[in-house]
C-alpha cells in the first residue's frame, strides 16, 4: 500500500482508489448483492421494507418452479417452459452463428489480401453500430404480414396466402441470429489472425485434407476465440430484450420479457429480482462451463 502511494503520488492515488472502489463497490457488487437479497423478500410496499413483514422467503423461486398456489398445475409450466425454450434457442443460435461465421472469419483472417480484409472488416462494423432495435425493425419490415418477403413470394406465385412469420417465431429467431452475428466473427477472426500461414501450408504440403487441416490446426488454434464468441453470443442472446420486443409474436415470451413483466407491469420487484437471479446463475454457469470445456481463462473470453 505504501508502495502504491509512493508510486503514484498522493493525488493520483486518491483518484485511482476512489474511482475503482466506486466502480467495484457501488456499481458492481452492492447492486447485485442487494438484488440477490431482494429476491428472497416478500413483495411489500417499499415503505414497509425493514419492518416486521420484511422476512426472508423462498416464495418467488417457488413461484418460478411451481406456479401460484391458486393454479391447479403442479409445476409452473409456462415460466419454466419459457426458461428452457430461451436457453435451448440461445444455444442453437450460438451454434448456428458459429457455423455461419467460421468460414467468413477464416476467409478474412487467412485467405483475403490485407486490403480486402480491411475493407470487409470495416463493412462488418458498420451494421454493428446501428441500434439493435433498428436492425430488428429492418427484419420486421421484411417479415411482416404485408412485408417484403411475403409480397415477393406472393408475386412469384410460390405461396397463395401470406405466411405469418412473426407468429411462427421465424422472425424472432432470425432476428436474434442477425443481432449478434458480429460478436461471433470478431473473436474468431482475432484468434485466427495469429495463426501462422506457414502452418497451413505445411499441413497442406503434408497431404492433409482441408477438413483435417481445420480440425487439427485451425480449430485448436482458434479455441479461445471460439469460446469467446460462443460465450458472448449466448449471453447476449439469452439476455436479449430489444430483439424479442420488436420481433416476438404476442404469444411467445423470451425469458427477459417475463422479468420485464414482473417488474414493470405487475410491479412485483422481488419476483423480477428472483427471475433475474435465475438468469444470472445460468449465465455464470455457462461461462464457467465454457472455461472448463475450452480450458481457457476468463481473460481470454472477454477481450
Amino acid at each position, binding site marked *: 500500500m505504501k508502495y502504491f502511494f509512493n508510486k503514484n503520488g498522493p493525488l493520483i492515488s486518491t483518484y485511482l482508489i476512489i474511482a475503482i472502489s466506486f466502480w467495484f463497490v457501488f456499481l458492481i457488487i452492492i447492486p447485485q448483492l442487494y438484488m440477490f437479497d431482494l429476491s428472497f423478500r416478500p413483495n411489500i410496499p*417499499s415503505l414497509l421494507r425493514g419492518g416486521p413483514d420484511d422476512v426472508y422467503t423462498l416464495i418467488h423461486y417457488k413461484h418460478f418452479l411451481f406456479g401460484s398456489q391458486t393454479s391447479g398445475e403442479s409445476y409452473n409450466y409456462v415460466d419454466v417452459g419459457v426458461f428452457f425454450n430461451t436457453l435451448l434457442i440461445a444455444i442453437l443460435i450460438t451454434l448456428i452463428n458459429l457455423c455461419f461465421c467460421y*468460414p467468413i472469419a477464416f476467409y478474412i483472417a487467412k485467405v483475403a489480401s490485407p486490403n480486402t480484409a480491411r475493407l470487409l472488416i470495416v463493412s462488418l462494423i458498420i451494421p454493428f453500430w*446501428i441500434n*439493435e*432495435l433498428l436492425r430488428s425493425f429492418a427484419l420486421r*419490415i421484411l417479415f411482416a404480414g404485408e412485408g417484403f418477403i411475403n*409480397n415477393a413470394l406472393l408475386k412469384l406465385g410460390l405461396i397463395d396466402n401470406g405466411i405469418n412469420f412473426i407468429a411462427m417465431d421465424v422472425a424472432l429467431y432470425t432476428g436474434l441470429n442477425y443481432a449478434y452475428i458480429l460478436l461471433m466473427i470478431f473473436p474468431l477472426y482475432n484468434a485466427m489472425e495469429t495463426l501462422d500461414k506457414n502452418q497451413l501450408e505445411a499441413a497442406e504440403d503434408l497431404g492433409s485434407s482441408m477438413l483435417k487441416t481445420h480440425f487439427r490446426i485451425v480449430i485448436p488454434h482458434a479455441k479461445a476465440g471460439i469460446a469467446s464468441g460462443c460465450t458472448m453470443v449466448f449471453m447476449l442472446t439469452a439476455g436479449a430484450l430489444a430483439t424479442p420486443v420488436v420481433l416476438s409474436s404476442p404469444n411467445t415470451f423470451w425469458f427477459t420479457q417475463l422479468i420485464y413483466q414482473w417488474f*414493470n407491469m405487475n410491479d412485483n420487484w422481488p419476483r423480477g429480482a428472483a427471475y433475474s437471479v435465475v438468469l444470472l446463475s445460468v449465465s455464470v454457469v455457462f461461462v464457467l462451463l465454457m472455461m472448463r470445456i475450452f480450458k481457457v481463462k476468463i481473460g481470454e473470453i472477454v477481450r
Partner: protein
Amino acid sequence: MKSQQALKILLGIYIFIFFAYLFGPLVIMSITAFNSAEFPSITPWECFSFRWFNEGKIAYDGQHLAGLATDWRLHEGLITSLKIGLGVVLLAVPIGLSAALVLTQVHSRLRTAFYSLSIMPVLFPGVIIGISTVVLWDRIATMGGGGLATELGRNGIFLTILAQACFISTYCFLIFVARLQRFDQTQEEAALDLGANQTQVFFKILIPYMMPAIASSCVIAFLASFENYNTTVFSILSDQTLTTVIASKVRLGISPAISSLALVIILITLTVTIIYEVLRRREDKKKKELEAEALFAQTLDSRLKKAKTKGLKIPKSIFGILFVVVVCIFGFNKMVEKGMYGSTCIAASEKEKKSNFADQLKLLQKNAEKASQQSSENGDVGEKKEFDSIFGDPNLFKDFGGFDSKTQDQD
C-alpha cells in the same frame, strides 16, 4: 486444382450471401423510408417522397403519423440520450482508466481477481444490471427520506448513467489495458529521474500516451450508451431515451418514420466510418514515408529513395461511388417521368385509398351485421392482431408517439 477453383467460387458465393444477409435488411429498410405509404414497404410502391423525414401524414383513418422532423418524443428522447451519453463518458472513461492503471501495478493472485471483477459486468445480462441498479436506488431513495438521495434515486437519467457506466467502464478498461500493454514503463522512471513528481509524470507522460485510447474509449462509451436498450429500459424509470421511444413506437405499429430515422443513423455511421478510414489510411501512408526517409537517412542507400509516384492516382472506390450516383439520378428521373414523385402522386394515391377504405368499411359493417345475425365468430382481420400490444400492456398507449403536439397528449 479444379476442386480448389470450385471451392473458391463457392466461398465467394457464400461471402456474397453473408453480406447480403447483413446489409439486405438495412438497405430495404432505408428504401422504405422514401415510400409515401404508411406501412414501410417496397413492393406496393406508392410515391417517392420525403414526407417521413419531414411532417409525416394524417392517415386516411384520421390518425396522425408523425415524421422525423415533427416527432417531439423522438427529439426529447434524443436529448435525454445525449445527456446520458455525456454522463456515461464522464464516468466510465476515468473509471476504466484507473482500473487499467491499477491492473499494471497489482501482481499475480490479486491481479487475476482484479481482472475478473473488472470484466464481470460485460458478462452480466444487460437487463440485470438495469434491474439491480433500480432496486438498490429505490431502497436508497426510500431511506433518504426526501433528501438528495431520494431525488437522485428517483431520477431516471442519473440511474441510467450509473447502470450503463457499470458495464461501459469495462469496455473502456479493455481499451486502456490494450494500450497500456505497449507502454514502456521506463518512460515513467525516466521522467521521475529527471525530477518530475508522480502527478507530473501522470499528466505529462501517461495521459499524452493514453490520449488515442482515451479518445476512442470516449467514442465507444458514447455510442454504447446511445444505443443501449436492455439496461436503459429498466433504469430510465419515467423518462424516455431515444431507444425506449423507438421501442415503444415499434411495439405500437411500424411506421416508415422509423425507417427514415434508421437511414439517418446509417448515413451518420457511414460518414464517420469513411472519414475515420480515410484519415487512418493517410496516417499509415505518412508513417510509411517517414520510415522510408529515416531509413534513407541512415543508410544513404539511393535505391531506397524511390521516385515518388507522380500524377494523380484515382482511387478505385471513386468509380463505385460514381456508379451509385448515376444509378440514383437515373432512377429518380424515371420516377419523375412516371409521375411517382411529388404532391400530385400522393394526392392521387390518397384518394384511391380513401375510397378503398370506405369500401372496406362498408364491407366490415356488412360482415358485422352478418356475424351478429349468425352469431358466429368471424376471423380476425389480417395484420391487425400482431400490431396490438405484445404484452397486453395498458400502459403502452402512454408511449404512443404519434401525436404532433404536446397538448393532445396531456389528457
